[in-house]
């Protein structure tokens, strides 16, 4: 939701600023990824975060008891902040925003390559190098398989898509051939 986007960005920015001031930006990425995987792997935790009937105090207790020392103090403090501001239901969006903000700062951009069959590592690294040359940023490549494209591949990076799929070419051939003379 648009509202959550703005909220998420503000909290994420606040966290990153706090981490910078206390010189903890190094661990921030792993901490944020940790919360992401936690939300994914523990449906219980996700449910508790979204449940409005559990009082804030109760949720704060759960966080301190369940995590205790296993998460960094800055992260625990951040979670408690979210709970006290009643923003814990936006946790997933906030940590996602945090990770993408970190990527932005460090000049990392995610590219998603969709291909018909899995690409080899050689192909992947060649593609990554090409994309890094084009964009001037560090590229983190994610791979996706989609059989409907028949062949070739397409890369989505930032707001742009490079479509070299066979499906798109077939479409263009069809358009060219059926165009009236």
């Amino acid at each position, binding site marked *: *939701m*648009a509202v959550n*986007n703005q909220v998420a960005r503000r909290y994420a920015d606040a966290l990153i600023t706090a981490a910078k001031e206390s010189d903890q930006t190094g661990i921030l990425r792993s901490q944020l990824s940790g919360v992401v995987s936690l939300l994914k792997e523990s449906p219980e935790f996700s449910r508790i975060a979204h449940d409005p009937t559990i009082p804030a105090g109760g949720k704060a207790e759960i966080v301190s008891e369940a995590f205790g020392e296993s998460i960094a103090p800055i992260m625990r403090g951040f979670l408690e902040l979210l709970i006290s501001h009643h923003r814990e239901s936006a946790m997933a969006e906030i940590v996602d925003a945090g990770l993408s903000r970190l990527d932005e700062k460090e000049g990392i951009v995610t590219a998603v390559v969709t291909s018909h069959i899995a690409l080899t590592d050689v192909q992947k690294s060649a593609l990554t190098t090409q994309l890094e040359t084009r964009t001037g940023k560090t590229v983190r490549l994610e791979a996706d398989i989609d059989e409907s494209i028949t062949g070739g591949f397409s890369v989505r990076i930032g*707001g742009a*898509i490079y*479509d*070299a799929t066979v499906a*798109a*070419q077939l479409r263009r051939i069809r358009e060219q051939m059926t165009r009236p003379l």
Partner: protein
Amino acid sequence: MATTFDVRPDEISSILKQQLLRFDRGADVYDAGTVLQVGDGIARVHGLTNVMAGELAEFPHEVMGLAFNLEEDNVGCILFGEDTEIKEGDTVRRTNQILQVPVGEALLGRVVNPLGHPIDGKGEIHTDEHNLVERKAPGVIARQPVNQPLQTGLKAIDALTPIGRGQRELIIGDRQTGKTALAVDTIINQRDTDVYCIYVAIGQKASTVAQVAKTLENNGAMEYTTIVSAAASEPAPLQYLAPYAGAAMGEWFRDMKRDPKSGEPDPERHEKFKHVCVVYDDLTKHAWAYRQVALLMRRPPGREAYPGDVFYLHSRLLERAAMMSDDEGSGSLTALPIIETQEGDLSTYIPTNVISITDGQIFFETDLFYGGQRPAINAGLSVSRVGGKAQIKAMSDRDVAGTLRVDLARFREVAAFAQFGSDLDASTQRQLTRGERLMEIIKQGVESPMPVEEQVITIFAAAQGKLDDLPATVVGRWEEEFLGFVRSRPGILDKIREEGRLTRPCLEALGPVTGYGDQLLKTQLSDLIDEFNRTFKA
């Protein structure tokens, strides 16, 4: 019927193979975004970073959308299709094209939707040319004053509130008073003229649009008409788009034709397709559709919940009607917008807006309609700000339509006294008698346009008092029989049609035929009417 072709099948294969080899296998590159939210015919898209305002965007399942609101962190798009299959997370791609529609001769005779796609099942529309849907209207220098008539074939209009080419004349009234019928009859009357027509249906019942199409078809009007339809079941964004699409198609006619490759003017081709009349039926529903879209897009509501720029919505549409200067090709686009009022109230928001934009209005009244006066035009409140310049001299002659308005106005003043019968003084009685017959003479049926020369002679007869001795109720029959009489005496109608005026002396061969020698046309006409009246049985 089997024919043997000279080309062999393997030759065809090799030609196709060569074409495929020559095919450019480069990759498509396009900007894309992701759907954040979709519903109610609109979608919010994240990304689409370089999209332009008014640009077309392609959604999945072949749905097109328009970038309507460019906001800080998302783009609000209105969808020109069903939103049911579009999901959050779907990819949206830019088309790099500002919204445009196909235009040209290929659209004549077709029924299309506001995107230019055919909906009459008669196959693809093949055209090279496209016009932007939103375009600036021609400036002052590019125009010339309206000086040619657009004959509607209806006596009440052509005599009282004449319409000129390039004018905007509003057709306004309550529901079921004959507004669409007027527009359709006008289109039918353009059959043997050089005016093409576009009928834009906004938010109408699909059955009504089908009926209009059938009526036009039956009267041979479809061959020079295009229907642009966004029926009530179409999404509001399409209804919002429809009039602008119609205007864009009309502008192809109005503007100088150019060679598609070189851009050089092509005056020969332009001569054939110079004039167009666009009917917008109706702009009330258009304003509703725009309000719906604007509110869904969270634009601040103003009076009656319409967005603040609802005046601009219609003013920019209607400004595209123009009579172009000779340098620009002398083409024209005449606009006939229709507005539906509630309970005859002309002072509400949208009607007042459009009245102030157009060059006059034709006001239909329910009371007149049910009182038998059809077309149910209130001659007092209806006006054409172009007036006599849009009439042929024969019609604007002071003995024809010249006195019509004044006589009808006098009649309205004294009409209330009609119930006193014989207790009135002679001059009031005369005004009443004359007025009643004039009101009768301007009545006309549907789908029966009358050529302007016939209009001239019937109105001349009534205005000169030739019907004052007949009971008002037989005027209709008188007109029918008189026209039959005149048509059987060739010459006078042709003369009026050719000369366009009644005051030239009639010099040539009319003498032996009518026996009137070289008298003024007007005098001849007068004598002809008297001759007919002698034999007419009331």
